[in-house]
């Protein structure tokens, strides 16, 4: 019954988001597109960072690679954009799967630093390969309405949230939770942790790349420093932590709050927007270490360590 209520609320939120363009102007749609984009990106980060407990600092690599590959295939090989986009998403997923195998052998800080290096290395390679646009980047044709991109980003965000929900409530989700809670124990009961982690990483990569291919067309110009900006990873991470890591709605909530606050800060105070945002993030880290949704509910897949002291 209350599960039904949850579904109903989900439907209402999606419906409201779908109807937004009818009532608002281009600027609001632009902001909403950005928020939907970050909701999708944060949800993609949540799969590896929140559910599996591997804090990746390099997820922007998949976003950037998706954007660059799609642009390269459509501009250099004259593929229809939809084909280029599919190839870019599959390519990035494969890239995540293959690189996940060695990277996910590292844990904690070592994993974070290795993924940070992965993103930087990917950018360096793209910058020096002419087929991938080099340092000059790509110009793509300008497409008419901003609404298309809003719906595309929203679609990916919904897909990411629904996917997260399905994973959390699946056997696969339980494996990821087991890895997060105690990887050694999971291994010892016969769970193929390497495969599970790499799959989560690859899914995260696929979602990130999907956002990337839409972003490239939306912006119509991309260059490596923009699409491989480490700040994008930081946003994914901060939004997820703020909303509640390991939850379905957490990354979306984080993206909405930070997305709106950023725009408000930018229109109210020219110079202090980063400062305000930084203060907000500090406040969350200090007062809501488990995120907004995490405070009330240790969600399935959420941080469980708090229970330990009770057990002695």
């Amino acid at each position: 019954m209350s599960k039904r209520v949850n579904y109903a609320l989900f439907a209402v939120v999606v419906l409201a988001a779908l109807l937004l363009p009818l009532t608002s102007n281009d600027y609001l749609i632009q902001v909403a597109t950005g928020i939907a984009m970050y909701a999708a990106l944060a949800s993609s980060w949540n799969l590896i960072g929140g559910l599996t407990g591997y804090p990746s600092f390099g997820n922007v690599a998949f976003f950037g690679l998706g954007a660059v590959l799609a642009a390269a295939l459509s501009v250099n090989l004259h593929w229809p954009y939809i084909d280029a986009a599919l190839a870019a998403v599959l390519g990035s997923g494969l890239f995540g799967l293959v690189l996940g195998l060695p990277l996910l052998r590292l844990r904690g800080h070592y994993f974070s630093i290795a993924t940070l290096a992965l993103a930087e290395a990917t950018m360096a390679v793209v910058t020096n390969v002419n087929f991938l646009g080099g340092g000059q980047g790509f110009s793509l044709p300008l497409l008419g309405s901003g609404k298309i991109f809003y719906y595309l980003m929203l679609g990916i965000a919904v897909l990411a949230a629904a996917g997260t929900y399905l994973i959390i409530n699946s056997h696969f989700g339980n494996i990821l939770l087991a890895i997060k809670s105690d990887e050694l124990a999971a291994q010892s009961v016969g769970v193929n942790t390497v495969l599970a982690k790499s799959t989560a990483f690859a899914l995260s990569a696929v979602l990130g790349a999907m956002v990337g291919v839409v972003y490239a067309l939306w912006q119509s110009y991309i260059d490596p420093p923009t699409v491989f900006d480490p700040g994008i990873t930081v946003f994914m991470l901060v939004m997820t932590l703020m909303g509640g890591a390991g939850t379905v709605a957490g990354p979306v909530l984080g993206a909405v709050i930070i997305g709106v606050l950023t725009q408000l800060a930018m229109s109210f105070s020219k110079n202090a927007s980063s400062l305000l945002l930084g203060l907000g993030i500090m406040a969350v880290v200090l007062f809501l270490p488990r995120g907004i949704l995490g405070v009330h509910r240790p969600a399935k897949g959420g941080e469980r360590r708090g229970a330990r002291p009770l057990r002695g």
Partner: protein
Amino acid sequence: MVRKSVKLTGLFMAVSLLLVAALAGCGSQGAKQNTSNASAADTITIGAPDAATGALANEGKLVHDGYTLWQDVVNKQGGLLVGGKRYKINLVFKDDQSKPDNDKSLTEQMITQDGIKLFLSPYASPNIFAASTVAESHKVPMIAAGGGAKKIFERGYKYIFSSYPYSGEYLGSVLDLLKGRGIKTVAFLHADDLFSQEADQGGEAYAKSHGFDVVYSAQYPSGATDLSSQLTQIAQKKADALIGTGHFEEAVQLVKQAKQMNVNFKAMAFTVGPTMPAFAQNLGKDAEGVLGASLWTPDLPYKDDVFGTAAQYAALYKQSFGTEPDYHAAMASAAAEMMGLAIQKAGSADPQKVRDALAGLGTVHLFDGSFTIEPNGSIKGLVLPVIQIQNGKAVTVWPAPFDKNIKDIPLPPWSKR
């Protein structure tokens, strides 16, 4: 537990709705403010996303000041004379934090919320790419000052114009100067960003077609802190001249390392670096004789009705901002002037009319030189000056008659300095 989650989803929705309402409210506030401005009827509002903070803040300030100087000078003259009536100019700046995606949303915001229909661009080519796509889709004109990437003008856009020549043309004057000084072999070294690549490719093509022997060409990552291995290779090729296309720090680095490694050139030239006062301050006497590609200097013999001569422009700028203007500021002022000319020609601030007027401006004569607006929005014909560091100062040494100022080319070896 499940009931709780329902409550939370409710909370989540309430918070989102509240935030969206706040955002919408903030937007409409902005719109209201501006309609009151526009209804003042004797004001023309021009928007400009600019880099007030972030990695491009230095150049961003120069561009900001360049635009502002035009506004202040025009307003001091009573306003812009359009169809027999004088209009005050009101520039609206919004900080893009040097990030291209902010330029996109800020431009959108200024067009749809604030009702601004005329634009000057943010600084740097990637930012112009982003902002110009929004201007194009809303059919409002934007004049770019701060990026000469050819790709900006190869997209078939109708609403983007520029006061800058293509990046690929920056090195032409330097090579002309070197040719007259008996330089035959040149080594090119460039960074991997958009501007450096285009400037380098243009320079290399010009060199080859003008009888130079390009003995070395390589790319390095932006922000490289050690270029000694490249210098070693260049030394083996025995190049007469080194032409570096990158950023300030890399130009300083190359001169320092060339001295340390005793790699001698008859001439050294950079696209970015020597024009900035910090270059000579940083390198001291090692900077002597180094050439810099520039787009404008106060010595140039041009003038117009708004600023007067190039020298008078420099004086006005110094009076307002306390420092000497460099070419970023001057080119920005020129872009703003182009906007003024187009509004006057159109006889209105209507975006479509101003766009058509810009496209039909033809050849204009401003304090930064004479140039022609091309059908794709770029410009042609601007004569680019070259400067040389002499006694710690940037001296104009190109075009003629300034070539009589050239000193020490070929440069003395490091051991004899």
